[in-house]
């Protein structure tokens, strides 16, 4: 599917191919949309990490997927991100959190992405509607 773009008063929206290059395209587009809001380096970094993890999850792990969309809007309580895909139903937020560790040998290599997303967001939810997986994340801007 070719990428399409929209932004303006209604926020930011990209429909992107399901491949790794879409992560960078989404990041650059979102950064351009958020530029006028002057959110600061720390907030922008958190937003970029959350975007990276959520889109990377779809691109690397979703099955039977050929549509990916990324929407964002900057509101009073934060930047609202919505990542949607039409792959097989999958709730990445339902996975068990990695076990806390105190040594290199104990540390789990998996699950770090969702852990980051959970800790960097003000709110996070998953829903399956009309054959679409949709994750909504809010990153605080204050």
């Amino acid at each position, binding site marked *: 599917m070719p990428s399409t773009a929209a932004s303006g008063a209604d926020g930011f929206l990209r429909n992107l191919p399901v491949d790794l290059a879409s*992560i960078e395209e989404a990041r650059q587009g979102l950064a351009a949309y958020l530029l006028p809001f002057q959110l600061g380096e720390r907030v922008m*970094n958190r937003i970029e990490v959350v975007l990276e993890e959520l889109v*990377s999850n779809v691109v690397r792990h979703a099955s039977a997927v050929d549509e990916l969309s990324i929407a964002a809007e900057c509101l009073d309580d934060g930047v609202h991100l919505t990542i949607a895909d039409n792959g097989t139903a999958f709730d990445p937020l339902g996975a068990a959190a990695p076990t806390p*560790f105190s*040594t*290199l*040998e104990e540390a789990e290599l998996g699950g*770090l992405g969702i*852990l980051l997303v959970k800790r960097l967001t003000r709110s996070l939810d998953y829903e399956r509607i009309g054959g679409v997986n949709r994750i909504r994340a809010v990153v605080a801007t204050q």
Partner: protein
Amino acid sequence: MSVVITDLSGVTKAELAGRLDTSNVNRVESSFLAGIVPKGQHTVVDLSQVTFIASLGIRMLLSAARVLSRQGARLVMYGASPGIMEIIETTALSDIIPVLPSEAAAIAAVSG
């Protein structure tokens, strides 16, 4: 994204530069690990030119530290910017891999 591996009198130095995102980690992980693991030496990782890190970058560093640890060698990092440091601390990576302020402090930490 670039990886430069050098030897500082028996300590391996790995300089990472650029974004440690999904695409770049896929690209550089094998050369990063191949550059430091076979040496089996204490290793310092320069993060001062890293502008972004996400979970796959964290996983790459964790993997390297773990493999070196099994060989009796330590890996420490230094030079992380505040944004990089926040992500390292959020994943608790900094609890098991020390992050030092400078190259000198990093070398002292692995040599002590």
